[in-house]
């Protein structure tokens, strides 16, 4: 059970407070409701590049990191296709420094040309390090545009290509800031060894003076249902063949999401899971095979990722994958197996409550989804999924005409 209290400032900033007195630390987490899906198709990778620029100095504070490190704090951030999330952890006694830093960069950035030039380079190196100079690193750069035809999930958070990042201009940075970085588009969670009234007073002091700005209203195209199988084969400098099979699945807040999520657990959670047990262990056709999903807010991706063992043909690998999916479509899963994946979900939830930052991030995310208390109630949705639900969902998800397959083969 994660406790929290909530209030909203006049400028629209939503604030949640989670008290945990077992730690001497505090967390200040700010989620901005902007991700790669909100980018201009001609300027992809921008939300993530912008995240880097948020550390390039704000209107009154030249060095964000230095000021924080001086009081014993650490920070980081991540950008996804859906959101951009910034967090600070620091000794609770120095909490006000976090308010000072975060409010100043929500108020206004310094917009330094030098920072823009340097961070464009840094992000290009990140692009190379993680996506281009790694075996299989560019898989999602190739797969996303196959899976999505309309929705902006068709490009990766890092961006479609290096050229988009290289072309970023200061005017784009300023416009992006004005559009997305204001109190109305943000959710703040303050957690740890903090007092609710103190947080309220600090929030009023540092954040209330920030102009509300305009509420960004998202209007993204809905990805149409897929009616034809999509197959592509690429050859690359990799030592082993790999197969990626993607099925579109319900978004994170859809009532069917927990069922689809549990299916990925049945297939791939732990060493007793079906894919591992049947196809890595009993009949070792694959050196590795797993299922997962992206937990996206809009129509997401259910993924089977497989590395056939040497000497195994693609046809046999395909057959094995489909045999496993067909089993889910045709047979009700045994009670014990369903209990197992639900037990695992429960224990994962309990373990994650040991981590203050995880709790703060999850509160922010669920608040974005409409209700922070989902952090405590999601588990009931999982508990109520039946074997029949699983079977129905498998039939809905896994048909050949809805599959997108990328065969990523050794040259």
């Amino acid at each position, binding site marked *: 059970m994660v406790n929290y209290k909530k209030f909203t400032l006049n400028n629209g900033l939503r604030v949640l407070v989670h008290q945990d007195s077992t730690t001497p*630390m505090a967390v200040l987490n700010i989620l901005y409701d902007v991700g790669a899906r909100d980018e201009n198709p001609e300027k992809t990778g921008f939300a993530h590049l912008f995240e880097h620029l948020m550390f390039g100095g704000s209107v009154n504070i030249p060095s964000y990191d230095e000021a924080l490190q001086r009081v014993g704090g*650490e920070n980081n951030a991540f950008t996804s296709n859906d959101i951009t999330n910034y967090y600070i952890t620091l*000794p609770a006694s120095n909490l006000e420094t976090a308010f000072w830093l975060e409010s100043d960069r929500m108020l206004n950035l310094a917009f330094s040309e030098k920072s823009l030039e340097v*961070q464009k380079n840094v992000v290009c190196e990140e692009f190379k390090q993680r996506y281009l100079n790694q075996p299989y690193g560019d898989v999602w750069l190739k797969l996303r545009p196959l899976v999505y035809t309309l929705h902006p999930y068709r490009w990766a958070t890092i961006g479609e290509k290096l050229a988009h990042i290289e072309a970023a201009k200061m005017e784009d940075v300023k416009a992006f800031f004005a559009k997305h970085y204001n109190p109305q588009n943000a959710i703040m969670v303050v957690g740890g060894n903090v007092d609710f009234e103190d947080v309220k007073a600090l929030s009023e002091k540092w954040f209330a003076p920030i102009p509300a700005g305009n509420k960004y209203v998202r209007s993204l195209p809905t990805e149409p249902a897929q009616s034809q199988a999509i197959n592509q084969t690429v050859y690359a400098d990799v030592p082993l063949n790999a197969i990626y099979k993607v099925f579109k699945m319900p978004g994170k807040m859809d009532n069917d999401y927990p069922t689809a999520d549990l299916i990925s657990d049945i297939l791939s959670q732990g060493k007793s899971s079906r894919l591992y047990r049947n196809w890595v262990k009993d009949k070792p056709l694959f050196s590795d095979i797993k299922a997962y999903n992206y937990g996206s807010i809009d129509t997401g991706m259910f993924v089977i990722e497989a590395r056939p063992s*040497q000497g195994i043909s693609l046809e046999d690998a395909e057959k094995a994958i489909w045999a496993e999916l067909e089993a889910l479509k045709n047979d009700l899963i045994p009670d014990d197996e369903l209990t197992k994946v639900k037990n695992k979900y429960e224990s994962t939830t309990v373990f994650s409550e*040991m981590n203050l930052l995880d709790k703060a991030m999850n509160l922010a995310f669920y608040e974005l989804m409409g209700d922070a208390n989902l952090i405590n109630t999601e588990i009931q949705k999982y508990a109520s999924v039946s074997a029949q639900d699983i079977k129905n969902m498998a039939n809905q998800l896994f048909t050949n005409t809805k599959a997108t397959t990328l065969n990523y083969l050794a040259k």
Partner: protein
Amino acid sequence: MLDRLTAPSFKEIDNVAIIKTEKRVLKNNIPVFVLNAGQQELVRIEFIFKNVDWDINNPLLASAANALLNDGTASLTGAQIAEAIDFYGAFFQTEYGYDHSVVTLYTLNKYVANTLPIVKDVLCNSVFPAKEVATFINNNKQKLKVSLEKNDFVARQQLNNALFGDNLYGYKTQETDFDKLKTENLQAYFKKAYHPQNCTIFLSGKVDEQLFNTIESLFGNWYSNATFTSNKPIFNPNTQKQHTIKKTNALQSAIRLGLPSINRNHPDFAAMQVLNTVFGGYFGSRLMTNIREDKGYTYGISSGNATMEQAGYFVIAAEVGVDVCQATLHEIELEMNRLKTDLIPNDELTLVKNYLMGSLLGSLENAFSHADKFKNIYFYGLDYTYFDNYIHTIKTINAQDLIKLANKYWDWDNFYKVIVG
């Protein structure tokens, strides 16, 4: 009017309360370190074994035995083990490091009676079925092939080999090494290493007397006549310092620079941690500030004091654009030499000290992390005074001390320099 130009006042961290483990001993003398803390009804149970009898003729024996532990016992198949663990929402992990092999169970307290007996069976009766060994060999050969395509992996292997030679710490895995693994030699290794007299148990989370009693009844009667020899690696460093491995079409080069250095046992270690932080140990470090934040040559560059039980080395790591590799090396050398000639300004040193204290405080997040603190020192023969000394060093070290330290330990020409890409 709100003053946004002046930083709010702040407090320095003086007090770091590490929760100490309590030592208990089972009937058969297995030491059990107990850390009872936390709100959640869960527990982490770790069994730590020293690696023993390292042999270049079968260098992967210890890591393979660890990985294959949960693949079958005399009475349970791998599938049954996995099923039983997963059914109760538990996590059963094996982890191999240079010095230790670890077996960990994470479980909700309410299921300890269901999950722990399985661990007992695994630790006492693993059999390493031939079929599972064969699958392990195939899969790991394939994984190695993929790893060898990663510049950072190749560079790390090359650096360790240059620093230490062909032994426990420096051996470069070959694909053919996997073929030496057999059920028989794995079983033999298992009997020697997974031995009650080579075992230390750590309990953290919600640990009550009932749990301890369960541990006692399951593991207190565990005896073995097998004998084992502790690893004593003999180092054979390469005389050649420069190691360049060319990769065609590389977009980036992996840089790994290393120099033999001290480990956690050494009285200078805490001070070296401070010096390392200034140089490349945090986001605001000299290396990051210059090479990432000023020049944009890399996504990240860092340095660290790598510590093993019988060796230590200092390492610098980065992946950089191929065209700026030489420029990066030049800047690293400049930054290192600057720490040997110029005193660290007071302002910077104060910041680093505060940062390190905050970091120490923040590393004590939950019962597990408090237990980890002790685990990190125990096998070095150290006790909790290590942390008193660490804090004292952070609080009292000055710029003169650090310049001396940089001159004592760092010599650019002596660094092994590995470039892959």
